[in-house]
Each structure stands twice: as C-alpha cells, then as structure tokens.
C-alpha cells in the first residue's frame, strides 16, 4: 500500500477497511484479517494496525471477539457511510472549494457534469445487467 496522503497511516488503513465494507469485500458479521495478517499484507507495524482496529471499535464499526478475531458489526454500513461522509465533507470538500475558487469554476458547471456522470453510471450499470 502506498501511504501518500498527508493523513496518519492508521487513519488511512481505517479508510481502506471502511471502503472494503462499503464495496462488500468485507461483509457484516464476517471476520476481517487479523492484525498480523493485515500488517504483513500492508507492510506496516502490527501496532499501527492495532491502533486502526481500536479506532474502528470506537466508531462501532468492528468488534473484537476474544480469541476469535475482529468482526464487522451489524448495521456497520450506515456507520461507515456516516464516517466517510464526515471525512469527505470536512477534508475533501474544502480542498475542492479552494480549487474551484482559484480556477473560477462555477457550481452550476460542476452540477451539470455531476448529472452527466450519474446518467452515465446508471446506463453502465443497466448494460451490465
């Protein structure tokens, strides 16, 4: 994993796990990789992964079942969505706004592109079916 952004590594790993839950790669009530497995896979210190898992437990997204491992909580998708939304609103959006201002991009332009994007996305997923 390439830890390029400015965020603390344990947060970046938390984001990664949240994305896996949203995409369905990690399912509710299923076990996720152990601290050691994930540390080896991501080439990070196991203490860092432990910190990520503590953080996700505080957010009520995963649970530690002693001796068995870490599991994705029921209804975690709602909490993950809320968490990622908050991150987006507080961190990514201000950056976007900043660039929009510098480049004098009107919000209506963005809206038009966004509607177009949504339309394409719907078409694509229909084709797949």
């Amino acid at each position, binding site marked *: 994993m390439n*830890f390029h*952004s*400015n*965020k*603390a*590594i344990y*947060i*970046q790993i938390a984001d990664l796990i949240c994305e896996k839950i949203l995409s369905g790669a990690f399912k509710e009530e299923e076990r996720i990789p152990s601290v*050691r497995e994930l*540390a*080896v896979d*991501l*080439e*990070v*210190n*196991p*203490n*860092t992964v432990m*910190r990520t898992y503590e953080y996700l437990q505080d957010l009520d997204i995963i649970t530690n079942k002693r001796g068995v491992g870490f599991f994705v909580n029921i209804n975690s998708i709602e909490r993950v969505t809320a968490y990622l939304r908050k991150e987006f609103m507080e*961190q990514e959006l201000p950056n976007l706004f900043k660039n929009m201002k510098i480049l004098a991009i009107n919000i209506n332009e963005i809206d038009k592109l966004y509607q177009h994007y949504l339309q394409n996305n719907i078409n694509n997923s229909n084709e797949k079916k």
Partner: protein
Amino acid sequence: MIRFNNVSFGYPKQKLLYANIDLELKAGSVYGLLGKNGAGKSTLLKLMAGLVYPTHGKLSVFNADPTKREPSFLHEVFFIPEEIDTPSLHVLDFGAEHMPFYPKFNNEQFLHYLKEFDIPMTNLNNMSFGQKKKVWIALGMASNASLIILDEPTNGLDIPSKRKLRKLIASVINENTCMIISTHQVKDLDSLIDKIILVDEGEIIVNTDTESITEKLVFKLSSDISTTEQYLYYESSLAGNLIVKERTSEDEATKLDLELFFNAGINNKNEIKQLFN
C-alpha cells in the same frame, strides 16, 4: 529491556563519542535509530550487543551486563552488521554452523525466508553482496532472538527484497522482541518503525514513539509561509514549503515525515528536545 545508565563511551585516544547518556528501550517495538554519518549509530548498537564496552556508566540488556558476554545473554542477541563477512561455505552449512548458538533457532523458518528472498542453494562465495546480506537477515530472523539489531539492512537489497524484508519484519515482531534498525534509507522502512531514537553529536536528541510525534507535531506542505505562525523547521522549494510545527487542537493528525523530522531534530535540537523529554 535495554537500559543505559549514565553511559559514556569513546574509542581509545579519541574524545568521548557519548558522554553520560541515559536511554531506555522496550520490548514489542521496532526502533529506528537515526543520525548523520559518523554520529555514532553503529557504536550505540555495538554497545548493546557487547561488542564494545562503555568507558563509564552502567548498561544492562535483559538484566544482563553485555560486557560479560554470558551465553544466556548471547543466545538472545542477533546482530546483523552493515558490512557482512561470510565464509566460503554452502548456505545451509553456514546456517547449521550458527544454529547451535541460538536455542530458539527455527530451521523451517530459515529455509522459508531463504526461499522468500530467492537465495540460490549454493556456496556463499558465489553470491552477490545483496544475496549474502539476505542470508544474514534470514538467519537473524530465524534465530528468534529477543533482540535483533540491523545496521543498514536495506543496503544492497533490490526492490522486491525490500518489500519482502518489510513483510518479514511485520511477521516476526511481537511483544517479547525488540528490533533496532539503524538506517539512512528511512523511506524503505518508515511504515514499520514505531519508535524513533535520534542521535547527534554524542547526544540522544529524541527517544519516543511515532504516535507521540504525530500527536505533538504536524508535517505539511504549505504554499505560503505565515508570518504569524511559529514553525519548528521548514524547507522551501518551488513546490511549496515543507513545514514542521507544533500541533494545536485545530490541526488534524498528519502522517509522520521521518526525513523532515530528522532535519528538524538536527537543525532545531533544543526545541525538539524540549518537546520530547
């Protein structure tokens, strides 16, 4: 696990390299030992391993005195030097020769690590420097010693081997072991290091965990330099200003930039020392 108590050290006929240092290292961590060339990193490692003796003061490693070099102490220490020396032996004979010295040595692990590192089953004389280095690393990790010291372990390693080494370290570190890595290639291993020891001019500037560094400091790229804010250190280039400053309640935690932290520690020694001691 390791305790330096008012330790001084100097090589014969030279001025003291370290004067009255105190330092404590705990098990369960990967320590990154950082310092400029000639700062005395290798000497500090040699002191811990009982390869050189303190001029003054007391040093204990798992409650033993390294200078006594008792077998029970040596069983638990594996030192992988930067410059390695290998005899003309088949790699497996080389392993067999070292095994008896380490009661917790695991031969299966040794063979597995050799395979992971793509080591040919041949005489060490036929190997490149990087391959020999990997044989030493495989041996050290398979020794299961409580203290594993690696002096510049990524020197000579090719790109895939560096990745294998990171995976290997992540897989072997546990709450009973202590790994100390001295390195200039901080980007090779920075995601594994969770404690930092920074030495300069015979002083321990910092001995702390990476978590407290990112709690106390922020590292960021900023397009402009503020005249009202106090920076501990910054570097300017056309790309912007790389800034190290004290973290306030408004700042989000950032990723630790070890190179920037190193430069801050060397160039603004006093403030960094105050923050972490």
